[in-house]
């Protein structure tokens, strides 16, 4: 992973450990919750990067570290060439204009005693911009209009708005300073299904129009696929797999990604009943994660080496980075994840982009990629 010119953010071996303390007066540390434990990735300008994983995998902590709402235990976050952890207060404050966040709960992230107008104008007040009353109001109303709120509702209070509209207020506040980066932490999971699409469409539209870089965190894999160019799958504070969306959903390499995808219920009974690859048990405690590969306790492919040697995140020959000793092969994906390969184009593109798959050229680029019907070569899986 060399530093690319297009990277807005470079994350290097980022760690956040929350101490577990014991004692009432004299506290001593008896352990640490390793919420984020050594993640490295780049975020390219203008892209949408998704972070997915189960509860407690560290995705929200990672997001908060990126915008410096939390101070990391170790590692670097380089934003636009500046290491944000070494910046002084003033420099950090001006850099904060470039990065904004949208929170999950539109009910608790807006001050109930302030009008919508003053909530959206808050960033201007904080940064001492648009000092004139009329000027500021005009800009706020432009923003309200931009996110689909009625500008006449400038003087209303948050409780007068529905959940979806409140999330729009949060979005207006986040884009007020024209940031380069927007971090959306579960922006739609508190909303009704019919409202979710409104907010998702708004985010996509804003990203396109304003050239935003978006980090999108969600536990809903279908939503992440819809929104993101690249996706990082996290497990117990580490990145298990990082790949372009089509790749990740079409040909997952890490068994954990495979298990997540296989668990998604498909709202289409025509697909027939699938043989699910069910993960047994729960996520182990991040205070005491398993040794070596953290997934080995639940992994269907785990072998001796998985509990001894920690796998590194590396290219598995299909353009996907995965941290696994025994990545899934195309046959396994075909068997266990018929819906992944049922996605048009992806099976063939995944196989075709495989570096070592000389035979992959022979794969007909059929758009129908129906499981079992496409004659995928046996040798298309990369050798480890």
């Amino acid at each position: 992973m060399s530093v690319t010119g297009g990277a807005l953010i470079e994350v290097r071996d980022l760690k956040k450990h929350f101490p577990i303390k014991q004692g009432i007066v004299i506290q001593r540390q008896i352990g640490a919750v390793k919420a984020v434990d050594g993640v490295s990735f780049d975020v390219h300008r203008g892209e949408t990067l998704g972070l997915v994983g189960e509860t407690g995998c560290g995705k929200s902590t990672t997001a908060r570290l990126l915008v410096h709402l939390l101070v990391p235990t170790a590692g670097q976050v380089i934003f636009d060439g500046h290491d944000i952890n070494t910046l002084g207060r003033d420099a950090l404050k001006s850099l904060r204009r470039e990065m904004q966040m949208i929170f999950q709960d539109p009910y608790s992230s807006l001050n109930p005693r302030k009008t919508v107008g003053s909530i959206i104008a808050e960033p201007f007040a904080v940064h001492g911009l648009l000092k004139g009353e009329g000027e500021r109001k005009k800009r706020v109303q432009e923003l309200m209009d931009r996110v689909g709120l009625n500008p006449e509702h400038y003087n209303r209070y948050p409780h007068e708005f529905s959940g979806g509209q409140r999330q729009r207020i949060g979005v207006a506040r986040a884009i007020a300073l024209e940031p380069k980066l927007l971090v959306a932490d579960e922006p739609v999971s508190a909303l009704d299904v019919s409202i979710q699409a409104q907010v998702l469409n708004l985010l996509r539209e804003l990203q396109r129009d304003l050239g935003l870089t978006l980090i999108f965190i969600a536990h809903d894999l279908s939503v992440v696929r819809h929104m993101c160019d690249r996706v990082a799958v996290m497990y117990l504070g580490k990145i298990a797999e990082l790949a372009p969306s089509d790749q990740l959903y079409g040909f997952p390499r890490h068994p954990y990604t495979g298990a997540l995808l296989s668990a998604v219920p498909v709202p289409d009974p025509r697909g027939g009943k699938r043989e699910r690859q069910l993960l047994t048990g729960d996520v182990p405690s991040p205070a005491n994660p398993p040794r070596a590969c953290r997934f080995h306790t639940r992994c269907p492919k785990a072998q001796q080496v998985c509990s001894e040697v920690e796998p590194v995140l590396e290219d598995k020959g299909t353009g996907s980075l995965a941290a696994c000793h025994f990545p899934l092969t195309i046959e396994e994906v075909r068997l266990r994840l018929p819906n992944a390969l049922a996605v048009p184009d992806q099976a063939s593109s995944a196989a075709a982009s495989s570096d070592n798959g000389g035979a992959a050229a022979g794969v007909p680029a059929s758009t129908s990629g129906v499981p079992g019907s496409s004659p995928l070569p046996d040798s298309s899986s990369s050798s480890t």
Partner: protein
Amino acid sequence: MSEPLLEVKDLRVRFHTEDGVVHAVDGISYSIEKGKTLGIVGESGSGKSVSSLTTLGLTRRFRASIDGQILFGGRDLVSMPEDQLRKIRGNDIAMIFQDPLSSLHPFYKVGKQLMEAVLIHRPVGRAAAHARAVELLELVGIPDPKTRVNQFPHEFSGGMRQRVMIAMALANEPKLLIADEPTTALDVTVQAQILALLQDLQQRLGMAIIIITHDLGVVAEISDDIAVMYAGRIVERADTESIFTRPQHPYTWGLLKSIPLLTSPRDEELVPIAGRPPSLINRPSGCFFHPRCPYVREEHKRVDPRLAPVPDSPGHSVACLLSPGVRTQIWQGLEAGRQPEELRHEYVEAPAVPAGAGVAAPGVAASGAGVASSGAAVTGVATTEVTTTDGADAGQEDES
């Protein structure tokens, strides 16, 4: 299977509040047979939870008024006195709630809470109840049940707590299990485990399940039949396959088209449902969905549709004023990735140029001809009776 296990007939639940009367459930009817699964789908505030709580007699609050019948084994649960209802609740009909943490008592060991469920309904001793508690934990797949039975809820993870809730519900081998958003608070991996568990238990114990959720994926996996609720009413009801392959109600279309699917093209635009769910105090006139419906006609704002059978789709009914032919055409258009506005222009707004529509879509000439006739005729079979009874009915309730 002729005799339904549970039959809900024209159930109405109203809450009298300071702001007015909340019509939480407004005349719903459904039935479920032994061993079957019914999915009730809807947004928050659509009345889906209230209707199930009423089945268990849990809405009998002092400001609620309940009309209609809930027949369970031939006996009406609505008019049943509380002491008799207690014998059924948790015994013949059991419920699983959304949030397992707040549904378990934090102060008591899991075993004690499980034993309570057994002891209330069975004449057994404590030792036998304890053995049953261990057995139940084992049944729902909790490892090492003998140790776990002596632990507190906080020592269990979210998925495990939901398993405990299921174990508690199954304590007396209920004939009917009502699961209210049983997996909403859980991760997908755990959700898959819980759904598989419910299906497995259903097969082994032969109980009927009513699953209430907003997640169409979940109901598609688990249900035999689906009822879609909107603003306190069932707007569409059919077997699962029909709901997904031949949905009839614009709200159902909205739900299906507003969620991204793993199987749809990645760059496909989502089609959100405009607006938001209506207030159940001041409900819209006419069709309750009309303020959000892209295919609304002027008369839809006055006429209140009632659930009526869908032609050529047995067991399928819908409450919609559009004609069956138009509905089929619009759904086919949506499936082909067309936008609602476009379809509205073609099939709803311009009924005066039926020839074009008929020609454009060959094989639907008959329904095209239907479009040609006046609005009243278009609404057709479904609503003739409605205009007389229900339209008036809804209007009056709103005014009062």
